[in-house]
């Protein structure tokens, strides 16, 4: 009997081990959620988008685009032959870039932005003397690398690229309709077409507009990643020629237009006060002193050595959806006094949550943490939005408009949130009670109001307007994101997360108002 048992044990162990080895050995490659999505085939071409309301352009024709040459000219025929030459000798890599970019240029550039933000979202390591170095845009490749793409920096970066692309596409759509040049495959039916065909005029190329606008804007935002960015821009333009979607003159006109529009946004960005948002030691001291003078306990960095607060003047940055007076009007009333029983109760509530975290709470804390080394909460909402937009078959210009609305809402949410944080300078739960241990990193800026909650309130409000059937789902996500900061030990539930959601939704309403009146609905 013992020997039978032994055989059973032995063979079941052998079988089990073999099964595990087979499972492990056969199951390695991973696939991103948007790696293999189909080509964009818009349900509606939005041919009148040239009349939509731009963000900065005074009119869609502010930057002139010359009339294209006729499609019967020898020059045009030479351009068709260029396509044929590419197609006659296609490499695997060329097939890959055609497939990659055909999913949509706005989507891909948004993903590229998220990648660069994640790469750059790392707080600099301290100097020998316990101070911290500041990244320099003039010397972006020296440590600390420029930029430190923290949540406010990232929100602003997403917004500028998205808004520039949106305005540039409005201009592109205006000229497309004006000149009405047919796509190459409509001119020469012998062309292979590697993307879905459409009746959208091809001059100027929307893909080149997006590449030009993004590359130009990102010179300012990610000056150390120019080789990577230029390579993506070149890829996108080449992909359209290889695919038979555009001739070279479509591409060239588009790129020039995209860059010109982006220049207008670059000028705005240089003057939007973000460059001085880091403040200086005198200002940091002032924030602390002012808080003490109000009779409150001021925020103190929980890092060792103590790190100066993250972009304390970001609240002064010029918003997209409203003016700076509105930022102050959107600022909520004060949190409970640091010496009040109410604050102590909120603190105790955080302690009780964190000292017995459930696995489900840890899941939501980490799902929403979006901390160092990630694309930040704004990037997370971009990702959520993009994956829903994919299912909607939007035109490129509607993609650009919706992403721009979301990104501008997020940037403005960051501004209002940072204004509030540094106006009140309220301590984190772990500062009030050192027994509170967090389940993800504690951000290095004041507590009131929760950034995640503000970002999520704004995003969910706008997305619920854009995709009404998902409104309840977005609301639930925003509530969960806000809650994650409370159960993670980073924020007070009622004052930080609760008020953050409300303020975020108020910001989101401005984006909804714009959406209702921009001519796209």
């Amino acid at each position, binding site marked *: 009997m013992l020997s039978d048992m032994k055989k059973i044990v032995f063979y079941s162990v052998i079988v089990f*081990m073999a099964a595990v080895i087979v*499972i492990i*050995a056969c199951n390695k490659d*991973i696939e*991103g*959620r948007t790696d293999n999505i189909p080509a964009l085939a818009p349900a509606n071409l939005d041919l009148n988008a040239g009349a939509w309301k731009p963000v900065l352009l005074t009119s869609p024709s502010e930057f002139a685009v010359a009339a294209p040459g006729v499609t019967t000219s020898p020059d045009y025929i030479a351009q068709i032959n260029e396509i044929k030459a590419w197609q006659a000798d296609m490499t695997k890599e060329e097939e890959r870039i055609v497939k990659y970019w055909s999913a949509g240029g706005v989507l891909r550039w948004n993903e590229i932005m998220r990648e660069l933000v994640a790469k750059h979202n790392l707080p600099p390591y301290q100097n020998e003397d316990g101070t911290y170095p500041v990244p320099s845009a003039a010397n972006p490749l020296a440590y600390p690398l420029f930029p430190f793409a923290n949540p406010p920096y990232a929100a602003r970066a997403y917004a500028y690229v998205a808004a520039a692309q949106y305005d540039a596409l409005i201009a592109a759509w205006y000229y497309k309709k004006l000149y009405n040049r047919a796509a190459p495959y409509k001119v020469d039916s012998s062309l292979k077409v590697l993307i879905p065909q459409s009746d959208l005029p091809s001059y100027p190329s929307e893909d080149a507009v997006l590449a030009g606008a993004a590359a130009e804007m990102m010179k300012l935002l990610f000056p150390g990643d120019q080789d990577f960015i230029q390579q993506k821009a070149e890829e996108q333009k080449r992909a359209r020629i290889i695919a038979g979607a555009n001739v070279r003159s479509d591409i060239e006109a588009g790129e020039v237009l995209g860059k010109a529009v982006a220049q207008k946004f670059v000028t705005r960005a240089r003057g939007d006060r973000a460059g001085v948002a880091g403040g200086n030691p005198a200002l940091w001291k002032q924030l602390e002193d002012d808080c003490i003078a109000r009779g409150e306990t001021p925020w103190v960095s929980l890092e*060792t050595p103590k790190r100066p607060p993250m972009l304390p003047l970001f609240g002064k940055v010029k918003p997209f959806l409203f003016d700076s007076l509105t930022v102050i009007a959107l600022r909520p009333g004060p949190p409970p006094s640091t010496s009040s029983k109410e604050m102590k109760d909120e603190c105790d509530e955080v302690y009780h949550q964190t000292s017995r975290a459930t696995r489900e709470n840890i899941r939501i804390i980490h799902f929403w943490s979006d901390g160092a080394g990630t694309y930040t909460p704004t990037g997370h909402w971009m990702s959520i939005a993009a994956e829903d937009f994919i299912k909607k078959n939007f035109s490129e210009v509607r993609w650009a408009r919706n992403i721009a609305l979301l990104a501008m809402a997020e940037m403005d949410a960051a501004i209002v949130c940072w204004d509030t944080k540094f106006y009140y300078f309220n301590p984190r739960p772990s500062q009030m009670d050192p027994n509170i*241990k*967090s389940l993800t*990193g504690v951000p290095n800026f004041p507590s009131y109001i929760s950034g995640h909650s503000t970002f999520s309130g704004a995003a969910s409000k706008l997305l619920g307007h854009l995709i009404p059937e998902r409104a309840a789902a977005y609301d639930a996500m925003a509530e969960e994101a806000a809650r994650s900061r409370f159960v993670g030990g980073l924020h007070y539930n009622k004052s930080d997360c609760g008020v953050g959601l409300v303020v975020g939704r108020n910001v989101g309403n401005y984006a909804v108002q714009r959406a209702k009146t921009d001519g796209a609905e």
Partner: protein
Amino acid sequence: MKKISPRMVVAAMLLFAMMLPRSLSAQTDIDALMMAKNAFCVGPMYSYSSWKNYWEGTLKRDNENLGTVSTKMAAVMGNYGISKRLNVLFSVPYVKTKASAGTLQGMDGLQDLSLFLKWRPLQKEMGKGKLSVFGIAGVSFPLTDYTPDYLPLSIGLRSKTALGRLMVDYKLDMGLFATASATYLLRDNIDIDRESYYTTEMHNTHEVKMPDAANYNFRAGFRNRRWIAEAVVNIWNTLGGFDITRNNMPFPSNNMDATMVGANFKYVIPPLPQLQLVAGGNTTVAGRNVGQARTVYGSIFYILDFSRKSKSPNPTSNAK
């Protein structure tokens, strides 16, 4: 052999642990000891491991926002002799982590179940000793839904693994021995709670591709039916993965390498030959994307004999 008092044993073990700070995977799947047929050896193991410095890529640094990171582990380990040439082993660890500074909370929980088959196909007299060759196959899989994406404070990497190991042991009749092994470890992809993560590029998925790993282990010392004292060098080499970027947090698919040196010590109590005391320690002398850990551990094993006929009190047949 002269009788040694338990007090002397404890003193010797403590001294040993202090002099040669320490190796974890000893007396188990990576040594040359085999349980006799139908004998079952089981017992608790406790280890304490800590580090203050770590390698961020190849750069050695400390982190005042973590202080000293410690890992306590309590495990149950067992070894059953299907025959004297074929053993099956298991271990189930409970792990608790802590950072002495900063705000981050430690984690704790049941980690991974490991199972091994240890086979000795060859053993022959050679010169004044005996040469043995072993083949070892093992698997491990997580027992709970712990999170791996919270390094350095997650309790494990939560990857299902399978390993193959070739081991050669030569022991002189007088007791000196040397053992060398090479291991290839397959590691399955893992799932994390996040929807995306950045390595050297963006990955928009919650699935993380885990690089495989190799392990080389060398041990030499003295063993007889009552004592084992050995020095150990262990080299862990992750085959792929990426470096922690400057001032970033570690990630499960980092390229983690470590070279550890240590010593193990085992004593069979003469009046109670079923009871074995094991202690050891090791220190990390070189590494990449890992903490410079020092580990000490101790365990007590009890041997149950399931065979019907009475057996020799010495359970480790190879140590005869």
